[in-house]
């Protein structure tokens, strides 16, 4: 298997709660980052991270080491985000919040870096969920397309297409020109 988590995974499969707690400790930051970038909401990111680990424990008997444990965990987290019941409603809500805060912070006195971060988050939330997931996994988590394909449960070609489509949109929304950030603000 060659996975550093192998021992802990086997112990968890044998019902050792301490081993599973160690796995959570090992991967919690990665999963929180993913769920936050997918939702843009701190509270929802926490809920989804917890849900991810609970589901992982419930399904750990089905993990046979075909992929790295972290990739398997990514897949559960992505599915949790995609199945998020109120995701569309929340997404719009958060999106609007980000948009208004971005507009407010565009004043000369505001922190330019924070401003850009907000705009990036708003642009990510504007993407369709699957394209957003592809960008989050490849750009932020550094997965190659093959690993991302495993995490997303689709082919590499699909991942490549989603990344391409998402990047094209993001570039259009984030690239500075005379009407700076105009497109991002048009929600």
């Amino acid at each position, binding site marked *: 298997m060659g996975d550093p988590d192998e021992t802990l995974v086997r112990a968890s499969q044998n019902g050792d709660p301490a081993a599973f707690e160690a796995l959570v400790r090992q991967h*919690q930051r990665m999963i929180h980052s993913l769920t*936050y970038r997918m939702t843009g909401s701190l509270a929802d990111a926490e809920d989804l991270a917890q849900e991810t680990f609970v589901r992982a424990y419930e399904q750990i008997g089905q993990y046979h080491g075909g992929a790295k444990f972290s990739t398997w965990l990514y897949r559960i987290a992505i599915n949790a985000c995609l199945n998020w019941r109120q995701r569309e409603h929340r997404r719009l809500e958060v999106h609007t919040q980000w948009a208004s805060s971005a507009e407010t912070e565009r004043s000369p006195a505001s922190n330019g870096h*924070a401003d850009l971060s907000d705009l*990036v988050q708003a642009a990510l939330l504007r993407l369709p969920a699957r394209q957003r997931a592809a960008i989050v996994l490849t750009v932020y988590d550094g997965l190659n397309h093959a690993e991302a394909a495993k995490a997303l449960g689709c082919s590499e070609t699909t991942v490549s297409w989603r990344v391409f489509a998402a990047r094209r949109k993001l570039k*259009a929304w984030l*690239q500075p020109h005379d*009407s700076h950030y105009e497109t991002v603000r048009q929600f």
Partner: protein
Amino acid sequence: MKPSDNFDLDAQLRTLRLPERSEAYWEDFPRRVTGELRTRLLPRPASPSWRPQLAWGFGLAFGCFVLGYFIGHNDAPRGFTHSLIQNQQELRVSLTKFPDQFRSFMLNERGMQKLLPDQP
């Protein structure tokens, strides 16, 4: 307006900051997860057993059905009325033929029974 050609999208995307959380949060989170697991995976308290109630319900329903069936299909009252009319005719004939001769009349499954006094 034409966008600039040397725009670095990846660099722009990496400006996205993550909210900072305290070390206490990271310490606590795994315990929260295992706590949630314990709550979800604990054997739930036995719910009130529905089987005896269901059995009683079925029994009662069956009893009502059987009762209804026999009431609906039982022609005993009709047969009884019919035999009464017949017996009434026989009674009249008997009383006409033998006035003051009968001590009692009795109706049972063999029909009308007449009891004469010991001494006429």
